[in-house]
Every structure is written in C-alpha cells, then in structure tokens.
C-alpha cells in the first residue's frame, strides 16, 4: 500500500464505521478463504424519482486495507440513487481487475457488500423479511506463490 496523507486520514479516522440506527437494508461481503467479512448498512430513502442512499455505515472483520476501502467507498456511495450505487460497484470491480488478486480482494469485499445491501433492498420491496444477502469474493487474499505452496503441502 503506497501511503499519502489522504490514505492515512482514512486509516486514522475511517468514515462511516459502525452500525447504523434506522438502517432498512444490510449486505455482506465475505472472503471464505480467511473468514474476513464486511457488513454494510444502508438507510435507503424514497425520492420522487428513485430510492437513494440517505446514510451508510460499515463494519469489518479484516485488515487495514479493507477498512480504508470501506471508508472511501461508503463516502462515494452516500447520496447516490440505487443506479448510481450499482454503477459505483461495477466501476470499482472493473478497476480491481487491473490489480493483482491479493491487492484486489479487500476492496472487492467492500464493493460486494454494498451491492449485497442494494440487492437486499430491492428484494425487500416484495418480501420485507428477506434476509441480508451475502456475496463472496473471487480474488484471493493470499499471494499466488503462497497459494501454490499451500496446495503442494495439502
């Protein structure tokens, strides 16, 4: 991770960290490889045009990179309508394709948690009791060499 003042500010004071009182949808991004996960809580408000993110919060069981990604992406998502949220998730995932998998996994987990929360909201329009959705990351958090070593040992 290359560090600048902006990044360190997110490390020192992660934005939107914690649970969200009055949230009406939640989503989870998970890394089954190491048990890390991100939970995103949204308070979706109804507008004349379409629903938008009135407030957002996240919690993480994960590393500092995950927390920084959560802090940045939730800031971006705040105020967006649902289409905007999906565009943000797509753009993030596309950007992550250019990174090595071990660098992409943490941010992918956050993006998927946001997508899961938005999808849960959509589902709850038909079924208010629909449980929070969970998506799993495709990128591996473990570097390739280490992965191969593990496979050989097993």
């Amino acid at each position: 991770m290359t560090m600048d003042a902006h990044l360190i500010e997110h490390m020192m004071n992660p934005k939107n960290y914690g649970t969200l009182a009055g949230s009406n949808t939640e989503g989870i991004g998970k890394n089954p490889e190491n048990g890390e996960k991100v939970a995103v809580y949204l308070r979706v408000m109804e507008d004349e045009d379409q629903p938008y993110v009135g407030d957002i919060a996240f919690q993480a069981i994960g590393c500092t990179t995950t927390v920084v990604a959560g802090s940045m992406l939730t800031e971006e998502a705040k105020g967006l309508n649902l289409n905007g949220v999906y565009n943000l998730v797509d753009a993030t995932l596309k950007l992550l394709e250019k990174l090595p998998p071990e660098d992409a996994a943490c941010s992918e987990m956050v993006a998927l948690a946001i997508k899961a929360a938005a999808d849960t909201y959509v589902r709850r329009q038909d079924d208010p009791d629909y449980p929070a959705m969970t998506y799993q990351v495709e990128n591996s958090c473990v570097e390739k060499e280490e992965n191969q070593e593990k496979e050989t040992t097993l």
Partner: protein
Amino acid sequence: MRTLMIKTHEAWLEMLMAGSMSRTENRQTLLDFSDILFRHFTWIEHEFICRNETYNYDRDAIPVKVTRLGDILKNITVRLNEIDLQLLSTEDKALTERISSDIRYMTGVLHHMKDETVTAFSMQRKFPDITLTQEATDALTLFLFEETYKEYELIMIYNYLKAHSEDAYLNRIFQILIDESFFHLKSFCDMSAKMGILAVPRVVMKELYQIEDVTQFLRDGIDEEFAAKEECRKLSEAVAKDSPELEKFFDFINNQENYHIALMEDALKHFLKKTNV
C-alpha cells in the same frame, strides 16, 4: 445501565488516548486513570451478567484529535460528569458510590493538570531522533494501525470470555493475556503518537467476542499469534539498519508472543479436557 456502559467504555479509551498523547509527567496519571475506567467498565459488565441482561461492546466513534491536551481533558471531564449522572439510575449503591468517588477525584486532578502541546495527530510519520527509510516508515505505519486494533480486539475478546467463565484456571490465563495486550496496546499507542498517527481503535464486531466455539477461537488465536510473530520479525528486519532500538523492541514483542502461544495452548488443552472432547 446500557448508556452507563457505553459512556464508561468511551471514557476509558479517551483517557488512554490522552495518556498516549502526553509527553510530560501527566502521561502516567492519565494511563493509570484509564486503567481505573477499564475496571469500572468490567464491574458494570458484571452487573449486566448478574441481572441476566444482554449487552454488547458497541460504542460511538470517539473524536480525540486536538492540538492542546487541555482540550481533550475538558471533553473527558464532560464525559465523566455524564457518567456520574447516569449512576443515579443504578441499583448497586456500593458500586455507584465507588465509581462516583473515583470520578470526583479524577475530574479534580484533570482540572489542575498542566496543559501541553499535542503532536500526536501531525501525520509527520517521523520518530524523534530516528530516521527510517520510506519503506520502513510505511511498514511501521501499517503495523501500528493493524496491531493497535488487534490488541484492543484481544482485550475485548478475553474480557468477554473471562466475564462469562467461572473456571479459575482459564480465567487466570485470560487475565494474563488481557494484561499483556494492555502493555502492547499502550506501547503501540505511544509509538503512534510519536509518529503523529494516533487513532482510536475501531469498534469490535459482536461476533468476534460473542464466541460460540471456544476451541476454534483458541486454535485460530494460536495461528494468529504465529502470524504476529512473523510480522514482528519482518518489521524488526526492516528497521534494524536505521534503529537498533526499534529492532530490539520488535524482537522483544516477538518473543513475548511465544508465551502467549504457550498460554493459549494450555487453555486449549484445559478446555478440551473439561469438555471431554
């Protein structure tokens, strides 16, 4: 009671941060006060358990970024006075009187503390009298953020386990691990403050301390201790060229992890024997 517990939790951490940012004789007093507030926190928790009421360790974010120590001392005093008001609604009068008496003493001392300039949030990322390479500085920065949170997380987990266990053997081990994590937390906060990157550790998610499978937790914990040893070793290597002092410190922390591993293995053996697994 719930508000009392949250505010005491926040006051404990705020006091710990104040102690970490101080560079004068105020430091030890503030750190001692933070220990007192942690004990208050555990006594309030015990009340919840006695009453068979559910609780968790959730709290709000705690703003600590100041340029003068006096500013955070004022904030702490406000919080302590709020706690004192909350005590009116508690049933255990002995506990109430004890906490209230401690608060009266602490606010009095805080009021007369000499003010000082705070540089703990400067983001300079430079140790006084030590010049590290950019690579070593970045590695140390990341380590401090990761490990400050990790030590706080461990304190909360072991504290929760201890609060819900009546096994004296296990509780002795949990208490040692809490004490050790406190030492590490204070050391890392001190280093973070010197680097200008002091930060309050983030809130721990419930599922981490409300453990359902203690055996698995201990097994994972042993693996994590080995991983922490490796991080210390790498960091010790990264700073060795520029600072023998920091190198020795990280070797020392690395070696302390050996005892943590031994204790956790002991706890695991005891737990398995007790539960006949």
